[in-house]
Each structure stands twice: as C-alpha cells, then as structure tokens.
C-alpha cells in the first residue's frame, strides 16, 4: 500500500522553526512506523534524526507523536493507524534538538528528584528482605515503566508549567512508596507534595491514554496523592 509520511523536520543549524516534509512510501500493512522511518533515513534522506534502540517496545527510545497521539514507533503498526497519511512529530513539552530528537534532561531531572531507588538504612537480613505476593502486587503496575516519556509529554500541565514533575516521575515514585521494604517515603513526599508535585495533576487522563505499557498512570498518581494526604493530615 502507498503511504504518505508527513514528518516534522527541524535542523537547528539551518532552520529558524520546524517545518513539515512529505514522503511517499510503499509499505506493508504489518510494517511498524519505525520501519517507515528507517526506509526514509536509509534510502531517501540520511539527515533524518530520531532515537531508537531495541525496536521491541522495551527500551523506550522511540516515543513520538504519531497521528496526534504519543506512541512508540516500534510498537505501532501501519495497519492499526487506519490511515493512508501518517504524521510524525517529536513528543511535546521538551526542547527539540533535531527532527524527532528532544532534550530529555528536564524529564530525567524530575525522575531523579523523587529518588527512584530503594532506601532502607537497616542492616539487611542474612538472606533477602521478604515480601508477600500481595504486597508485591500493590506496585505491580508501576514496575512496568520504561521511561519513554510518552505520558509526561502528553500531559497538558507539563507542557505549560515549568515546575511540574510529570506523570512518569510520580509513577516511578509510586514504585517505591508502595514497596513494603522501602523506608524512604519522607524524602520522596517532600519532592512530591511541593509546588511542582502531585497537586498540579488535574486528571486529564492524557498520560493513561499515551502509555505504551498500559500502566493506569492517572490512577497511580491518585494513589500517591491519597498516600501523601493521609500521611500529612
């Protein structure tokens, strides 16, 4: 089938502002959008810039806005888009460096702010710290995050508010807040309940729709809000 690929292009050395470029491609219905981008880069225009690594929906490198929705290019099939025209833009709310490549520093700065690692000052037991399957199930959803930034860059508050941590950072805080073995909540609540924390969330649900790993992001954010509220009131 014939596909029209509309790409938002931006080269900071030449362009003042991003512009659109159109490519006509022959594609199979089972092709991934990533395959189309490869076809353009390898056969038509080698200057096209985008991130990709594993190509199997695990590394989280190729999040981009495809036909108006944040998705992973490697997990999106041409046939699922049900459209002969496919538009691809970089994810929003972060500075564009070139074509689909954005500066992810603000995203990872917010991630580090919530201390997304295991905190427990007690001496570890002889063997592992035990946890029941029920205790593990509480934070099962938040372990699925691959840090692709699709949720955070789909969030209307993140687009406009320079301080909001964003859905992804809160999901990764959830991973440890609800871990029965972890003791670092006091430190995490400090970052999460301040001016840029969870209270900025207006439950737009864009993040839940954008997540390529089907994490119920908004629900997890609400769980963190509830935990902080009952902890501090």
């Amino acid at each position, binding site marked *: 089938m014939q596909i029209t690929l509309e790409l938002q292009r931006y080269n900071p050395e030449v362009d003042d502002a991003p512009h659109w470029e159109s490519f006509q491609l022959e594609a199979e219905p089972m092709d991934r959008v990533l395959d189309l981008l490869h076809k353009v880069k390898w056969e038509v225009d080698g200057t096209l810039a985008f991130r990709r690594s594993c190509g199997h929906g695990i590394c989280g490198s190729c999040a981009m806005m495809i036909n108006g929705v944040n998705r992973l290019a490697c997990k999106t099939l041409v046939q699922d888009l049900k459209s002969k025209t496919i538009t691809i833009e970089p994810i929003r709310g972060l500075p564009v460096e070139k074509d689909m490549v954005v500066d992810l520093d603000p995203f990872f700065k917010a991630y580090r702010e919530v201390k997304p690692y295991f905190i427990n000052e007690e001496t570890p037991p002889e063997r592992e710290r035990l946890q029941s399957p029920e205790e593990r199930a509480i934070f099962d959803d938040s372990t699925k995050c691959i840090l692709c930034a699709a949720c955070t860059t789909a969030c209307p508050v993140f687009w406009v*508010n320079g301080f909001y941590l964003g859905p992804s950072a809160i999901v990764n805080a959830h991973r440890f807040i609800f871990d029965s073995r972890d003791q670092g909540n006091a430190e995490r609540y*400090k970052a999460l309940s301040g001016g840029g924390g969870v209270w*900025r969330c207006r439950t737009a649900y864009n993040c839940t729709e954008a997540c390529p790993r089907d994490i119920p992001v908004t629900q997890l954010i609400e769980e963190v809000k509830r935990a902080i*509220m009952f902890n501090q009131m």
Partner: protein
Amino acid sequence: MAIKARKFEEARRQATFNLELAWWVFMRVSGLLLLFLLWAHVYIGPRLISIKAYDITLLALALLHGSNGLRYVLDDYIHNGSLRVILKSTAYLLAAVLLLAGALFVAKL
C-alpha cells in the same frame, strides 16, 4: 535537608507545612459544598433563604474556590516572574474587594 534553599521557589518546595495539600483538599470540599449551596440558591431562590450566614458562606466559598483556580492557571501559564506577581496580586485584590462588597451588601439586606 542537606541542600540549603537559595531561591524562594526552592524554599517553598522544601517547606514542611504543606499549603498546596491544604488548598487541594479545600478545592475538593468547597467544590462539593458549592454544588449543593448553589443548587439551593438557584432553585429555591434567594428570598426563601434569607439567612445571612448562608449567603456569606456561599460568597466566600465561591470566591476562594474561583481565585485559587485562577492562581493555578496563572502559575501554569505565566512564566515571567514580575508579571506573575502583578497578575496574582490583582486577582487576590479583586477577590478581596468582591468579598468585602458582597459581605457589606448581605449585611444590609
């Protein structure tokens, strides 16, 4: 806290008294209350409910709820520091004037 706050924004983010949480809870509680208070105000009519406390509660809740919502919007969209201060103080002043004028009006009824 190991790192000392150097800017106002940092100090506010490190504050132990959680004002943002209090406002968040207030928005939910006042939103729910306003739903019923406004319903009674519109459908039963101001003549039947001539209790001054009722009217002043309704006015205060609506103004606080509204101006805090406005504060959220200004915090999100206005990035210029001095412009943000000007707009926010104007909004607060307006809310205070409306609250005072409304309270005086209700008191004279």
